[in-house]
């Protein structure tokens, strides 16, 4: 099951991943590993691009439709992939 909640300007996705976005910086925290990833520069741009291209609308506490939920799940995979790339470079 995929869910999302808005927490103080950040996102929490399930499977468990927590995202904070400040201007161009994207911070990702993965409780399963305890890793914190900073996606900046091109990675942050890719993150924002992915979010926009897939029309992910993170509004306030309102419901999210099924497509958006699937998109968020995809987003998570993308974020972890980007974070993994970041840690290797």
């Amino acid at each position, binding site marked *: 099951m995929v869910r999302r909640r808005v927490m*103080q300007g950040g996102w929490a996705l399930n499977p468990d991943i927590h995202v904070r976005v400040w201007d161009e910086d994207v911070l990702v925290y993965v409780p399963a590993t305890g890793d914190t990833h900073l996606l900046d520069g091109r990675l942050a741009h890719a993150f924002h691009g992915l979010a926009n291209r897939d029309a992910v609308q993170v509004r306030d506490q309102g419901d999210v439709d099924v497509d958006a939920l699937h998109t968020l799940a995809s987003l998570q995979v993308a974020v972890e992939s980007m974070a993994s790339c970041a840690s290797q470079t």
Partner: protein
Amino acid sequence: MRVTDLTAGALRTRLAGPGLALRTGPFVTNVQSRVDAVIDGIALHYADHPVDDAGFVDFHVGVQRPRSLRRWFRPQVMFSIDGASPFNALPGDQGFALLEWGLNWCISAHCHQYLIAHAAVVERAGGALVMPAPSGSGKSTLCAALSLGGWRLLSDELAMFDPTTRGLVPLVRPVSLKNASIDVIRRFAPDATFSTPIHDTVKGTVAHVKPPLAAVLAASQQAKPRWIVSPRFEPGAGTALSPLSRGRALMMLADNAFNYSVHGLEGFELLAAVVESCECFELCYSDLQDAVNTLTTVCDRGIATCT
């Protein structure tokens, strides 16, 4: 009662016997020692600190000479906590420095009720300036100068974030200076109280500066994080204060934290809340007075904007 209320003989008797229950911020440490460097160091640097005979003791520590030939021949000292000695012995004249390093270890390794980062913290008008940085970056030098120049000292070494209040908990103790920074601070604040420099430690030459009385008296007052500044001393460089992104500021705090992983998601959310409440900068400097003036001006401007 404060340490200064004890006569020299009474202080020595306590330290040599049952121990001195010394309160530093939220912690009470029972210290036992017969080592002159430790006794003199406590009498000098902790004179204004409370003696807490009635409360719970967080740590029972000692700095003593080993029970071996090194008690007399090229004397050494050993740090102990609850009777165990976690570190190697050091030369006898390093007793007070060893006590300070040992206390830092006790807190950073055990006090997980706080998220603790390797950072200096000073306060002005209720706002805390946090300076996370690795050793050698000029953090303690800048912290000493600020705390001797109108800011309130919270700690030169350990920033303790309270997860409940998201405030910074003071841990007012002597400021540790190394090598060239000792003379820099002597010139900056000739009236400050210094210990005799100890040479050939693992960190080079080390001296401690007594914390200002006002900071000791305010040691129960938390401060709200307001500024995060990553300092970098660079010989010959002009003072440059440039914005630091919140993402990088959080990573800097996390990288310099001793127990970020212990706090898990709560730690991430705590640091995220901290950086969201702060203005974040990088500071490159070589002129200490100019750096102090720059920080004070920028922070006062921020305070004025909010009032």
